[in-house]
């Protein structure tokens, strides 16, 4: 009974803190703009099965991709087991879902095996992150804090797996005659060591469940938030071709007015600003991308500008957006403001103008983030609000305006190529 009460209190605190984090994020989302309507559910489901559950983009890096996929699939199975542990904690029972028979055996067995695999992989990941020279683990946006966050997340997962195995070992030791579920790895360990882990069952259980609770509440503030957001991020992703850059409707209205002065002007749709200068100009999708981003750096790794030493790093754009939202969003919620902005105080013009819109970043992103469209949204602000494009581009604009071509040629000469 004490265990049940204690567990219930801890669970309520966990849920309370989590709900508080969710409400804070919801308030931030309310500051953003609409993106696109969520239609074509069947295509979204297909993409989610493919990219999220099938890990198709993760596999573009086969070795580390395979390791990630196993950790992810294992996580899915182990989460099912965690539901039972929460139920057991509330009711004070032990293995209360065992009535499910063969299904239960399969889930428990794969959870036990995956816990072991994940533990091994996490140790390898920690070694890799600590001692190996991986180019995408570097960059101005990868601060000591980012590394600490990454390491902490790995240790969290490592200890989650260790405690689960300890709990299984303890459970088997205590129930040697009537084990519910199948535990291939734990059983083997007991067989080999012939040790009695019975005393560790309870502490294994508590450590595991408390780690889940703490980790879940740590995640909304971590780059590892992708544990929650990557699947919805894939499901809600932009289904249009990568190089389709949406037209600005507010401009369409203005252009129509210019071409047809008779057209009625709809004052209800007044726009405050063209393009993106700060967090209140981004869409919910941009912000969601920034929260879901694991900062793996696959985008930056393939960016032609970054490869050739320019300052642009697609990953940094979204890291900056998340930081800026934390900063300015918090101020706005308090009814305050500052004089900074996402452009210039976080993202320099030099970065914005270095993008070739090649979409290698978006192609690579395992959770379907679209970097170039946000970068071009910032160009829209620079060009249409500040008229501060690089000189070459201003000349190109003038040429298109005057001669209908980006170069300085007369439209009368348009057929010279055939002569």
């Amino acid at each position, binding site marked *: 009974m004490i265990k049940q009460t204690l567990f219930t209190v801890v669970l309520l605190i966990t849920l309370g803190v989590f709900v508080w984090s969710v409400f804070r994020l919801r308030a931030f989302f309310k500051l953003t703009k609409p993106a696109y309507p969520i239609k074509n559910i069947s295509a979204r489901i297909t993409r989610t099965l493919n990219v999220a559950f099938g890990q198709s983009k993760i596999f*573009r890096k086969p070795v580390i991709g395979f390791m990630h996929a196993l950790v992810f699939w294992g996580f899915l199975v182990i989460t099912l087991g965690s539901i039972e542990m929460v139920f057991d904690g509330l009711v004070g029972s032990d293995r209360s879902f065992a009535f499910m028979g063969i299904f239960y055996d399969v889930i428990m067995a794969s959870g036990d095996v995956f816990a072991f695999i994940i533990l091994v992989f996490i140790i390898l990941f920690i070694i890799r992150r600590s001692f190996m020279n991986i180019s995408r683990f570097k960059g101005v946006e990868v601060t000591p804090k980012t590394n600490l966050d990454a390491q902490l997340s790995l240790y969290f997962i490592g200890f989650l797996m260790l405690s689960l195995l300890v709990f299984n070992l303890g459970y088997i030791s205590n129930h040697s005659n009537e084990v519910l579920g199948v535990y291939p790895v734990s059983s083997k360990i007991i067989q080999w060591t012939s040790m009695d882990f019975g005393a560790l069952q309870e502490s294994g259980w508590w450590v595991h469940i408390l780690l889940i609770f703490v980790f879940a509440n740590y995640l909304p503030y971590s780059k590892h938030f992708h544990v929650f957001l990557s699947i919805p991020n894939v499901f809600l992703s932009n289904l*249009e*071709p*990568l*190089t*389709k*850059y949406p*037209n600005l409707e507010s*401009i*369409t209205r*203005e*252009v129509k007015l*210019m*071409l047809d002065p008779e057209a009625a002007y709809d004052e209800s749709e007044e726009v405050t600003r*063209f*393009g993106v200068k700060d967090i209140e100009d981004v869409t919910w999708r941009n912000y969601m991308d920034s929260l879901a981003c694991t900062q793996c750096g696959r985008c930056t790794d*393939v960016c*032609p*500008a970054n*490869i*050739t*030493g*320019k*300052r642009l790093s697609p990953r940094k754009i979204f890291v900056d957006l998340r930081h800026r939202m934390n900063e300015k969003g918090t101020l706005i919620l308090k009814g305050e403001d500052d004089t900074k902005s996402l452009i210039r105080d976080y993202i320099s013009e*030099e970065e914005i*103008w*270095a993008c*070739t*819109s*090649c*979409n*290698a970043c978006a192609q690579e992103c395992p959770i379907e983030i679209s970097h*170039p469209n946000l970068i*071009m949204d*910032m*160009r*829209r*602000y620079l*060009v*249409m609000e500040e008229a501060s494009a*690089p000189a070459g*581009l201003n*000349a*190109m*604009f003038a040429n*298109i*305006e005057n001669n*209908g*071509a*980006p*170069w300085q*040629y007369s439209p*009368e*000469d*348009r*057929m*010279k*190529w*055939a*002569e």
Partner: protein
Amino acid sequence: MNKDTKIDIPIMADVAAKGEQVEYLYWVGCAGAFDLRYQKVARSFAKILNHLELRYAVLGTEESCTGDAAKRAGNEMLFQMQAMQNIEILNGYNIKKIICTCPHCYNTLKNEYPDLGGHYEVINYTEFLDDQIKKGNLNLDKNPFENLSITYHDPCYLGRGNKIYDAPRNIVKAVYGEVKEMKRSKSSALCCGAGGAQMFKEAEKGDKEVFIERTEDVLEQKVDKVATACPFCMTMLTDGIKFKNKETEVENLDIAEIVSQALDL
């Protein structure tokens, strides 16, 4: 046959004045009209269209920039002005099918014009040529090319942007027999450095130009030719090859030129 003589190209305004319709509109693009090197690509493609005896036309002096570069550079106002004017002309002629050689024009017409009222079947010339080859309408002479090696550079707006990877490769294979793939190819292809309006501005400070990085990918394959399917990629790789003093060893050809050469047009 003198290859440098004027090619007869039907102009849409003339066709319409005769009360006739066309099946295809060939969208030449600004590079096809004005870029000295890429004009040859437009000529090659027009010759193929004439060879196929298709009912097609070009807009000629009525054609204007699609606005792609302006849009990518953030000038949405200018883009939409261009788009609406072009759409007015295209709709005025009741155009149904548009063939583009430039993948930037192709992407803009196909993906960004519909929301502004421009609904056409937009076809990339690599898909069109691949289709014509498959139908047996183009009798390609492989002999002069069979012993030459070639690689293909994927334009971003064709490949990643619109998932056209196979059509250009099929064409190259139909003439050269084989395509040597660069390390970074298809959806992993490296950009030439000119997209997103980079063509019209100085590159930001860095250690290297993107087009040099990509040219090195090409040269690593030790090929005689490199095929491209985009006017910007053409400029960038041709410059890169010159920069590396390899212009006598490696030739940069467009897919349309590969076909017209194999047809001896």
